[in-house]
């Protein structure tokens, strides 16, 4: 009784109430307290990364896909260079032989105009005097010849001065580079003042070194026989790996580990996880050790009189076998985990009931386990289709698309086209066009994926309305 009285008194102490009301909650920074404000702030880091490394690249990929960008054109933009090739194009494609001839003829003319320029540049007067007296009016057909003459002057200029002087006397456009269309045309008019508009357009077009807009990439993709082959390769690769390893084999692992004691099951799960957690470089290295001429398989089979060979690249079939196994072993573990947990979710009593019924194990699998795996299988299939479509590291490191392009899959072809080939001829534009195809497939597949997995349920409305 007295205890409860104490409590009443204690509870009634006004100091606490006063203190509590004297210190209102620290929520005042408004943006930290509204869904909208806090949400946008917390979302900011993700948004920045998305914009920088997804949105912009996707847009750029879309842009690149419609250009002829390559090593030769550069990415950042071009200049105008009157190369022999450009002049030939002028002659061949536009029939402007005369203009090409005129522009391309290298000529170095010693004239007053050039001498005046030298004076302005502050070239030693003695040199200028030598030139004016001994060589005024001379024309040289090549730079080398002209520079030889310069070096023969009594007042011999040093190399750098020679280069500066020869620049001033060049009266041709051959091989010169202009940073803008205007400077090119101005220079061309210097050579031939009566350029027609048509000629100007042709000249600009022929001399431009940068990339231009074009839909050729897609035309080329549609008509190239390699496209078909790579496409078929890709479909074969994805379908086979998916069916054999990512679902069937993963299911086999999940079901067998379900039926054995927990300890060995755990060990097998760890073993089958090794391919997934191992960095691709070392994982593929192990396969190479296994399959190379000097590797384990060859040495082992040698005992049975089978000639050592590079099993991985021996034939197209072998290469496919290894590509699929290498990728499949990585993929199997994901299915294994998902299927295992789905099986674990089946109530024990179902199994017991089935045992009592005298169901054989196969019937347990058939009637109890498999029906439970329907959704997980669909999930794994969707997810892995995308992963496989875009996987590249293992295949790149294992066969690099070989032998003879037999295992060249779409993603790898993109890499080879746009970034990595022996001749160093990187075709960004064509590569981007190929990438765009994957981007579109990715979007479509993930939209289907969202539909199948009842996306709405995932975005249930927040329950706090602040």
């Amino acid at each position, binding site marked *: 009784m007295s205890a409860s009285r104490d409590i009443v008194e204690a509870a009634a102490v006004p100091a606490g109430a006063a203190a509590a009301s004297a210190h209102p909650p620290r929520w005042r920074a408004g943006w930290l307290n509204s869904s909208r404000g806090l949400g946008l702030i917390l979302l900011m880091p993700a948004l920045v990364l998305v914009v920088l490394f997804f949105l912009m690249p996707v847009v750029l990929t879309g842009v690149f896909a419609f250009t002829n960008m*390559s*090593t*030769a*054109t*550069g990415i*950042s933009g*071009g200049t105008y*260079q009157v*190369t*022999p*090739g450009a002049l*030939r194009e002028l002659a061949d494609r536009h029939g402007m032989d005369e203009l090409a001839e005129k522009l391309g003829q290298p000529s170095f003319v010693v004239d007053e*105009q050039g001498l005046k*320029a030298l004076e302005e*540049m502050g070239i030693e007067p003695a040199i200028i005097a030598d030139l004016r007296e001994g060589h005024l009016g001379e024309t040289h057909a090549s730079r*080398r010849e002209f*520079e*030889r003459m310069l*070096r023969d002057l009594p007042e011999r200029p040093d*190399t*750098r*001065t020679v*280069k*500066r002087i020869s*620049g*001033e006397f*060049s009266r041709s456009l051959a091989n*010169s*580079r202009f940073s803008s269309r205007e400077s090119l045309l101005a220079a061309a008019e*210097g050579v031939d003042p009566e350029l027609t508009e048509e000629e100007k357009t042709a000249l600009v077009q022929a001399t431009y*070194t940068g990339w231009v807009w074009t839909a050729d990439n897609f*035309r*080329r993709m549609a*008509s*190239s*026989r*390699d496209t078909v082959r790579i496409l078929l390769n890709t479909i074969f690769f994805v379908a086979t790996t998916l069916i054999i390893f990512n679902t069937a084999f993963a299911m086999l692992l999940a079901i067998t580990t379900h039926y054995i004691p927990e300890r060995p099951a755990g060990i097998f799960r760890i073993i089958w996880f090794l391919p997934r957690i191992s960095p691709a470089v070392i994982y593929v290295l192990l396969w190479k050790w296994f399959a*190379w*001429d000097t590797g384990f398989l060859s040495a082992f089979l040698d005992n049975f009189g089978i*000639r050592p*060979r590079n099993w991985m*690249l*021996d*034939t*197209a079939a072998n290469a496919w076998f290894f590509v699929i196994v290498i990728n499949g072993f990585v993929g199997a573990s994901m299915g294994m985990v998902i299927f295992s947990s789905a099986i674990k979710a089946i109530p024990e009593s179902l199994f017991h009931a089935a045992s009592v019924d005298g169901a054989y194990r196969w019937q347990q699998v058939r009637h109890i386990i498999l029906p439970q795996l329907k959704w997980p299988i669909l999930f794994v299939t969707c997810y892995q289709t995308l992963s496989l479509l875009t996987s590249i590291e293992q295949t790149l490191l294992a066969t*690099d698309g*070989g*032998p*003879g*392009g*037999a295992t060249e899959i779409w993603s790898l072809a993109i890499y080879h086209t746009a*970034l*990595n*080939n*022996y*001749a*160093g*001829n*990187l*075709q960004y534009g064509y590569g981007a066009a190929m990438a765009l195809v994957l981007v579109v497939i990715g979007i479509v597949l993930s939209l289907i994926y969202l539909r199948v997995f009842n996306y709405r349920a995932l975005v249930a409305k927040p329950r706090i309305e602040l």
Partner: protein
Amino acid sequence: MTKHLLRSTVAAVALASSATYALAEDVTIRVWAGGSSPNDVYRVDAIDIAADLLEREAAVRGEELNITVEKKVDNTWDDFKQAVTLAAEAGNVPHILVTGHEDIGPWSQSGLIVPIEDYVNLDAWPINDIYENLLEVASYGGVVYGLPQDAEARPFFFWKEYMRKIGYTDADLDGLADKVQSGEYTLANVLEDAKKMVDQGVVPAGYGFYPRPNNGPDYWQFYTSFGGVMEEDGKLVLDKAAMQRFYQFFVDAVAAGVTRKNHIGTPNDQWWAEVASGKAGIWHGGTWHYARYTNQEGLKDFFGSISFSLIPAGEGGKANTLTHPLVYVLTKQDNEDEVAIAAELVKIASEPRINTLHAIKSAHLGITKQQSNIDLYSNDRWAREATERLLPHANAMPNNAEFGTYWNAMWAGLEASWTGQKTPEQAVQDLEAELKNSLGEGIVIR
């Protein structure tokens, strides 16, 4: 008016700044070499030596110049070219690149590299001593873009012991190179002899003819052997018949069992070890193979074990070889002074004595005439014989901005027919379609 006629604004800026270059200066020059093995270190080390000389020259003039050379050597070509191209776009490409001359075409178009003739006097020593045809190879559109870094040729090799086993006498072997050169001994004979070796059990199946296991300029030699032409009047050329004969040759080799169907993709290291230890009967390579065989692979008696010749002629062509000089090229940089210094370094590195260090260490061929007067070079039997026997018949790949596309497509076709994915006829058809598609008017098809 004159301003418009500047040959190149770049050059003008460079030259205008020559005055400042005389002051005390600390410069870092970066140099990257692609496709280089440990034998090829002088590709970048030569720049180091040149830097030392240039510093001394400056000191003698009373100036202070400190050059730091940063060197990087890449073993492969694809990764090297990828890195260079991306670095160039990102604006931090090294000053000097050592690369295949065929890159001059695309790289000059994209503005990645600048003409070396804007920076050096082509009539000065040692440039005036460089073989004219090599300098030609380092030019594009009449402009000298780079200086040759080395020269080489790509011979056929015959393992003498096995040749003897199938009936060749020592005298036959000594005369073989001449017979190849004259066209008496052709690629058809190569297949015959290789088949004999396999049939008689001299070499295992697939080792009679044991070509390079991956893409390389070498394969253009076979195209040439069968009468193909790579470029004419500045335009790429696809000779369909020659290309098909060339593809067919490798298909025949596979069919005859002298070459493995899965040969492509054999690890390089393994291939080296095999040919240097006499596992293969006939193969082809490059002059630098000599260095590899005798250094890393431990082949004691090269000349006693191996004879070499041009690539034999095939139907419709003649014996030839290909030289694939690497070149020093200068990249476009914001700092023109650095380019000028890099140009000087490249020039000095081309001195016969310095270049000979590379030529002999890596078994490449010299680039200047005077190298034959340098003992290190002239006392080297391989350098001497290879220069005499091969260099006069050497072709080079064209410098053409589109050549890479042609090359990749040619290789894809070869690979496909070799491995049986396509028939040679089909491969050539696909190649034609592909090239028409991607190069359009840029290639003459006949």
